[in-house]
């Protein structure tokens, strides 16, 4: 892999250069404790150190609300919205979120089954990753999502003089080559800085364990009383799934226009934590009770992604950090790992 260096004094200029490749979205502080990806207006507002954004970058590709198609009610015509998606840049994406996008790709860009709106946005987007320092909720190391070798164009790691950049795609090479005045060769000292930072980072992860057997743990604990206990505290608000980088359920509905000349089908993110998620014709519901819905999320997030040989959960910690009821995802999983099924 190609490594290059971006000095501190060139950082803002680098962000300006990225604007030439499309509109730049970057992490911004949106309130006292929250961060989110927002359109960059001033490089000074861009945050490079943040625990996690409220919304994962999936919102740029799988939009929270979109129109799928329109049917003419007089001429019975059918049309899909014409989209003119311009290239755009997402700056400052953490490794676990890049892994999250790769997992979404495995679903929405499965060969032969591409989701059009998702695929076109993926093709237009440039991803610039940034190294994160884990906080108490981050267990991406346990999920093998704390480091990525692909899925980005450039990836920034902090060093004393500024940033060490890993180049991950032909576009990434082009950005470096076209703006060579901004970049410098790396020195041995830079490499040592980089290694030192990674070591410190690895030691900062709060959890050190293996989750490779988590599917069996969940299976044999299907009737564990903890599901009922924790579900009692659950608000069913859907925050955990809305903020999850790999949740991808949606709801569709039809809406006629006011003149009754056409009707559109819309799509909106849905959540398995909502009552009607499992509701089907005839009034039957796959997950009628809150505990069914609560347990379901743990099983779904820990199911297997065949294409990538990993779990759907990337360990970003959003579902715990953004749960108003304070329910701990890893708290429940570690409890299940240690729980005895048989009582003496």
């Amino acid at each position, binding site marked *: 892999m190609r490594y290059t260096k971006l000095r501190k004094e060139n950082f803002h200029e680098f962000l300006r250069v990225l604007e030439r490749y499309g509109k730049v979205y970057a992490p911004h502080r*949106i*309130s*006292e*404790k*929250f961060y*989110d990806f*927002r359109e960059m207006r001033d490089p000074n507002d861009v945050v490079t150190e943040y625990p996690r954004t*409220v*919304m994962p970058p999936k*919102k740029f590709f799988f939009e*929270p*609300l979109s129109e799928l198609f329109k049917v003419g*009610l*007089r001429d019975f015509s059918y049309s899909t919205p014409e989209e003119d998606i311009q290239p755009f840049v997402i700056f400052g994406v953490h490794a676990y979120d890049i892994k999250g996008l790769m997992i979404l790709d495995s679903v929405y860009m499965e060969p032969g089954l591409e989701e059009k709106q998702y695929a076109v946005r993926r093709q237009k987007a440039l991803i610039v990753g940034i190294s994160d320092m884990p906080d108490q909720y981050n267990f991406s190391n346990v999920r093998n999502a704390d480091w990525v070798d692909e899925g980005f164009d450039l990836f920034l790691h902090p060093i004393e003089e500024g940033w060490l950049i890993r180049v991950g795609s032909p576009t990434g090479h082009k950005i470096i080559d076209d703006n060579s005045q901004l970049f410098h060769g790396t020195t041995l000292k830079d490499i040592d800085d980089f290694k030192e930072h990674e070591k410190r980072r690895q030691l900062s992860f709060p959890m050190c364990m293996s989750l490779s057997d988590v599917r069996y743990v969940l299976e044999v604990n299907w009737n564990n009383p903890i599901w009922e206990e924790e579900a*009692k*505290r*659950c*608000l*069913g*608000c*859907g*925050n955990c799934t*809305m*903020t999850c980088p790999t949740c991808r359920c949606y709801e569709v*509905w*039809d*809406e*006629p*226009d*006011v*003149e*009754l000349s056409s*009707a559109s089908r819309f799509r*909106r*993110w*849905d*959540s398995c934590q*909502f*009552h*009607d998620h499992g509701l089907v014709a005839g009034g039957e519901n796959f997950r009628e009770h*809150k505990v069914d819905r609560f347990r379901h999320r743990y099983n779904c997030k820990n199911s297997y992604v065949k294409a990538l040989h990993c779990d759907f959960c990337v360990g970003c910690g959003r579902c715990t950090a*953004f*749960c*108003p*009821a*304070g329910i701990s995802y890893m708290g429940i999983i570690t409890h299940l790992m240690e729980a005895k099924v048989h009582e003496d």
Partner: protein
Amino acid sequence: MERRKLKVGIWALTGCYGCQLNFVNLEDDLLKIVQNVDLEVFYMATRANNEETNFDVSFIEGSVTTPEDEEEAKKARERSKYVVALGNCAVNGGVQGFNSTQDFETNIRTVYGDDAHFHLPFGLSKPLDSVIKVDFYLYGCPPEKKDYIYFLTTLLLGTWPEDWTIPVCAECRLKGNPCVIIERGEPCVGPITVAGCEARCPSHNVACIGCRGPLKVVDNSDAMALTFKGKELPTDRILDRMRLFSAYKDLSKVEEALRNV
């Protein structure tokens, strides 16, 4: 394709007429709507009301507070194919139903003193479905303009409006807002309140007060109360918060949960 015009009534019981006002606020869209709709009754907009006809759909605003309200509701029901409870007063009894745990006489004396005289035989404010069958619920205080259009256009096409069953939190996250419960421990009832407002208040950094009423399909108010208790909110404030727009909701689950903390 020729379409028969839909005969619509917009009735009002005890309320502030705000739901009707928001219908009038549709302005340009209203002119398009009346191409397909005959507004036979519309108390706020006209005195030429034709109450004796049969209605395809009746929107009824306001809570059932007086005997006349109840009579009117029954009259509208008899003559209508569909009845829509319009706005929080009709859906849940409204803010005027707030103190439904005490009897009416005590409430009156508390507010107006012993010397006050009231000639109207009115009582506690009840939701519409406590006296007649309601087919659809149009939530909000007042409802969103787009909801009126959605209800009328779906019914005109011969289908029906789908019920909202997701909480305000969903829309709040989709808007990219921070969470006022997590960040400031505020008593935001977004998790248990019907969505559809695009999280208007939290988007202005204000906690949701639940004006669209509690979700009907699920009741997570006990978990909500536990969360608030964890943020050290006093029990009476938690109960008040939950009763504000849903006086008739059974809070025994909440009270039990709080007792067991």
